[in-house]
């Protein structure tokens, strides 16, 4: 039990990071991460293989975000300007970290939703193709094609910026 609890504690920042990537709002991501981890903690008895905990928790986080999106669609009480499920997330705080990392984080947020999800899980969380497919609910081929498209768009969007940087 303590091992599982330690795994949850270790996974918490990663779950938050993924949800921050999905929704773009730090406060909203924190709430969703709490909800997702609480869901996972309540269902931890269903987890037969502790080694599959990361994929399992990311899948719960993804569904928690999807549920929040559906609720947001039905319940329009959220004030205007607080985007929860927009295709282009609100800019997050990029004042910390290296310059290239800030640029890449910003550009990653401008990608289409599915490409953003798979590239985040692939590059930042370093997950396998099949694991990503399980998290976002698709197949491996779809993940590969989205990854290739995401990399291509990133190269295209970064080319002017990198060229300007080299020119200056």
């Amino acid at each position: 039990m303590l091992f599982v609890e330690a795994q949850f504690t270790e996974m918490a920042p990663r779950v938050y990071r993924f949800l921050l990537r999905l929704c773009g709002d730090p406060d909203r991501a924190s709430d969703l991460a709490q909800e997702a981890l609480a869901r996972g903690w309540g269902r931890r008895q269903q987890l037969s293989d502790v080694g599959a905990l990361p994929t399992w928790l990311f899948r719960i986080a993804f569904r928690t975000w999807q549920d929040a999106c559906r609720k947001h669609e039905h319940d329009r009480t959220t004030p205007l300007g607080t985007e929860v499920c927009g295709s282009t997330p609100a800019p997050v705080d990029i004042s910390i970290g290296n310059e290239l990392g800030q640029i890449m984080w910003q550009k990653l947020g401008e990608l289409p939703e599915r490409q953003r999800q798979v590239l985040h899980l692939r590059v930042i969380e370093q997950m396998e193709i099949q694991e990503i497919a399980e998290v976002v609910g698709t197949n491996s081929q779809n993940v590969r094609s989205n990854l290739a498209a995401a990399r291509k768009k990133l190269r295209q969007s970064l080319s002017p910026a990198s060229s300007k940087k080299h020119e200056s």
Partner: protein
Amino acid sequence: MSDSPCDKWQAAVDRDRNEAMPPELSEHIAECAECQAMLAIETEWETALRDHAESLTEFAWNADSVGAPVVSSTVSSPSIRGGRWLALAITLAATVLAIASLNWGIEAVPSRESPLIAARSDPGGVATVDADEPEKQPAEPAIPEPTESETRRPPTLVHTVSSASHLSVADSSRPDDGLTFIMLYPRSTKADASNE
């Protein structure tokens, strides 16, 4: 980061950790400077993005904050419900016992004082009460004094009266003897009046 005419490096990028690189691909990358440059760029921005994302993480989670309510709601709720049922059962049992003891107390009065009933149903007792106005008897009727006619009663009746007197003397220390007498006297009066 411009598009490279040679895109074989992309197959190497999206390869899983446990996925072995095909020999022909590894040979090509070892010889192709363009693919090596692209792989180096990819590795650079991926590392920068990963470092930046890790620096953004300011989120802590404690299982106690989530686990405690879950445990309490699933484990202690039945005990709470059981406790409520137990308290209700105890209250109910106490009420039943109280009612039962009250009934037993009521029944004990006539059975204990049955000699008095026999004593007050005798003709001597009836002679001291006005049979025409049984309802006008006050709550504290005067205890009839023994008269000469009572002394001439049959032996059995005399024996009963003497028994009643004996009981009265014996139970005089009990404060409820008088009350018992008051409760039972009109009933015997009614019975005697109907007999007449």
